């Protein structure tokens, strides 16, 4: 049995546009606006990321306690629900604003931009974004920050950098937090640093404890130095 070949032209034509558009372009567009706002007011914007419960809010409290007399600082803090973290930070005497994401697992540039007018930016040297506790989604969303700092708590286990590589690849600094618990935990700072630097060899690493204050002076010095650099540019 022979099959007759069709000589008819294909019906309907399709037009194709080859593009190479970043699919988070809409987010990145807003992130650029935030960057320009920060440049105008010389405000250093630091995005703090980590898993839930690694000590971000406690670090914000400790940092405020140490630096609030040297720098004008403020925090915006993202959580799925409740105002609790912002309340804890406000108790230290600095301005903190809660962003309730209502179930969304990360902050997006649009959410940051929407609350910027609540901040007196020309009078703020250092603005923290305490991101939603999650090592996955926040890694993908540029918030217009100058630096991304990821906390890696000793209680989480030292295998996280290879499990969540994008977060560590896109971070500038890794803070090994809850270092006061090291004597009680099977956690190797050497192993976590090796894994993290295999992902990102430029990553700065600092061991800290907000409770014992180990490494807190170095952390604050790093912030003060970055604020100065920003104000010089």
């Amino acid at each position: 049995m022979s099959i007759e070949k069709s000589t008819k032209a294909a019906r309907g034509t399709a037009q194709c546009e080859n593009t190479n558009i970043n699919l988070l372009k809409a987010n990145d567009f807003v992130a650029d606006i935030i960057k320009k706002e920060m440049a105008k007011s010389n405000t250093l914007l630091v995005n703090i990321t980590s898993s839930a419960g690694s000590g971000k809010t406690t670090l914000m409290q400790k940092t405020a306690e140490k630096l609030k007399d040297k720098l004008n600082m403020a925090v915006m803090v993202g959580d799925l629900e409740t105002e609790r973290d912002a309340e804890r930070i406000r108790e230290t005497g600095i301005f903190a604003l809660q962003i309730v994401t209502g179930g969304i697992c990360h902050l997006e540039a649009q959410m940051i931009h929407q609350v910027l007018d609540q901040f007196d930016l020309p009078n703020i040297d250092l603005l923290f974004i305490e991101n939603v506790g999650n090592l996955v989604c926040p890694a993908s969303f540029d918030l217009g920050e100058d630096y991304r700092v990821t906390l890696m708590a000793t209680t989480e286990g030292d295998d996280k950098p290879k499990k969540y590589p994008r977060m560590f690849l896109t971070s500038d600094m890794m803070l090994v937090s809850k270092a006061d618990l090291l004597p009680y935990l099977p956690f190797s700072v050497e192993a976590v640093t090796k894994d993290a630097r295999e992902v990102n060899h430029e990553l700065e690493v600092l061991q800290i404890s907000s409770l014992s204050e180990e490494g807190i002076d170095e952390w604050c010095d790093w912030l003060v130095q970055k604020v100065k650099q920003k104000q010089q540019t």
Partner: protein
Amino acid sequence: MHETSIVNSIMRTLEMEFEQEKLNKMKAIHLKVGILSNIEPRLLHNAYSAYHITNPGYHHVVLHIESTELKIQCEVCNHITDVKNYRFICDNCERPSKNVIQGEEMLIHKVEFDD
């Protein structure tokens, strides 16, 4: 949850790039997503289906997702390495590198329209 945000961002991005008249003729979106992009194609397809419930206008538009593996190119010897176990180190000269040339993409790389 972040897949829902990504689908919203894709559609917002397309609305920024193309006139509505053209978008009405859209029939397929092709994405290229790297292994490092934290995008799981199956979950993104699910989120895309969910998007149509509230935005029925694009229900006929097919989503294609191509995944790409991770590659780095050494800045010193130019050698291209397939990254295994997230070890960002040149397998020729053993130097570390952050020069990711593939595997990080989150791209809308082709859009098809009815003529």
